[in-house]
């Protein structure tokens, strides 16, 4: 089983992002991390590899700082890692990202003379929560896609996946190769052991740039070629705060609140 996992580096999603004085997202003091859903995807891929052997390659399109994220992936189950980085790719939209990821996958396949059987993505990146790249990548590659996985099972020529739904789940089958996108499974991603951390530090991280990819189209990537453009960023309007009740006892506070609610005829 030859697996590709696509990871995106995003600002730590446990920190609230606000606009700075220049009206840009203030990310200065927020640690960049691997998108949470991508860590779930890598964990699911690692479990699959352990149960049926195979290799995992991770790719990340991003700036040089993403190397650190890739190292972390090498410490928790990935065998190979590539940073896809080129000034020409900066500020690409999802069409551009998908185009680059597809061509990077093709390049790695050609270099290793091995096709990817499965491509894992997160269900969405926590920055803009688009959830577009996984299905778009499948469409570009002409293969199937199953989204929102919470479990996966492998047969010789197909995968059977448990797709999370609002009311429960669906069992979905797809031919291989295919793309899958991962939601939060029942388990948590593993922590790296010290030994694996040390080993990961020594492993090389491959670099892929524009000129390494033969079929890449310059007119699909970069800021000038986006199909979706930001016009304006702003923070949502705040609601006016009302009254805060803090009486001697909780009982008094509760009674006062109920009286106000009754007055306002809200129940």
């Amino acid at each position, binding site marked *: 089983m030859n697996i590709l996992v696509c990871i995106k580096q995003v*600002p730590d*999603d446990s920190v*609230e992002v*606000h*606009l700075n004085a220049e009206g840009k*997202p203030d990310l200065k003091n927020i640690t960049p991390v691997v998108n949470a859903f991508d860590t779930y995807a890598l964990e699911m891929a690692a479990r699959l590899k352990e149960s049926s052997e195979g290799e995992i390659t991770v790719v990340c399109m991003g700036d040089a700082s993403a190397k650190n994220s890739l190292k972390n992936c090498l410490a928790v189950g990935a065998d190979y890692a590539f940073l896809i980085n080129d000034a020409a790719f900066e500020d690409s939209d*999802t*069409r551009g990202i*998908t185009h680059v990821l597809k061509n990077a996958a093709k390049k790695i396949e050609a270099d290793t003379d091995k096709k990817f059987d499965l491509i894992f993505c997160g269900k969405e990146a*926590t*920055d*803009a*929560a*688009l959830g577009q790249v996984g299905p*778009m990548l*499948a*469409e*570009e590659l002409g293969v*199937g*896609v199953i*989204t929102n996985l919470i479990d996966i099972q492998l047969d010789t020529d197909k995968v*059977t996946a448990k797709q999370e739904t*609002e*009311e*429960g*789940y*669906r*069992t*979905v*089958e*797809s031919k291989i190769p*295919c793309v899958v996108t991962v939601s939060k499974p029942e388990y948590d991603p593993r922590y790296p052991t010290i030994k694996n951390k040390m080993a990961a530090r020594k492993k090389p991280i491959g670099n892929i740039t524009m000129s390494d990819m033969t079929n890449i189209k310059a007119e699909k990537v970069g800021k000038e070629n*986006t*199909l*979706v*453009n*930001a*016009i304006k*960023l*702003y*923070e*949502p309007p*705040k*609601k006016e*705060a*009302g009254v*805060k*009740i*803090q009486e001697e006892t*909780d*009982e008094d*506070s*509760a*009674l006062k*609140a*109920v009286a106000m*609610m009754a007055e*306002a005829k*809200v*129940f």
Partner: protein
Amino acid sequence: MADCKDIMVYVETAEGNPVKVALEMLSPAKELADAKGGKVIAVVIGNNIHDAAQKIAQAGADQVLMIDAPEYEKYNMDVYADVLANLMKEISPEVLFIGGTQDGKDLAPILSSKFEAGCASDVMNIKIDDTGKIVFTCPLYGGTILEDIEITSFPKIAVLRSGAFPKLEDSTTGEIIEKQVSISNDCIHANIVETVKEIAESVNLEEAEVIVSGGRGMGNKDDFKMVEDLSNLLGGVVGATRPAIEEGWISKIHQVGQSGKIVAPKLYIACGISGATQHISGIMNSDYIVAINKDEDAPIFEVANVGIVGDVKKVLPIMIEEIKKIKEAQ
């Protein structure tokens, strides 16, 4: 082609009825179509879906294309995407609206790739600016920042957030056109072999008039029951924050917020909830918010009409008793 002004709306159905967001999408669709001088063309796919088509025709669509055949009885993403792609080629709409359901969120990027169409996700608002440009508002970073975007491609695709647009009030009489679409069998890569419902209850947070929600501050599953008691008493629906769900106190279908349901009740009671932006962004359209939190600096108080600083486990039983008394006296 690029001067076609029609707005195409994909209408998802569940048990033979249009899903809620499908009806909601008709109002911005109509506004855009009117401004551009085009038509609202709705598309319904399924088997025996005449009733759904009828509802859409009466809810604001100028035309309803009905793709009604046994092979569409069961949802298959590849098949439905192929049908929609064929219709898009034929109609060549300026914009395709898709409702932000789980399946809608999958179909949109597939179609976006097929047509090299820019795609806006989780659209909360749509306006036309002075130059006639369509501007879509989408959340970033869990809704702490909003982004106005434009799509430069033709066609454009927008996935609309459920609950963000009001349904049209006037009933209309659009025409229903039955259509056959031939799809190629080799478009099918994946199949749904089983659908399992683990949650029997129907939870309709989006249309609830009263919602009582509990967060991590409820402490444990037993005490979380107080939230359910108050909700029952008020004839409301129970909501929850993500941590309450992760703790297993209640199922995911009750989640309110950015990655859960966006709600707009008359009364929202937040119990033991801190008020993180990802939660607040889902309750901003509530008419009246009551919050109970022991931390007087909790951000939830910044949006609450009435904030109670206190221990939720002491406050809730008293509120329940007192409201019972008032109700009985009525």
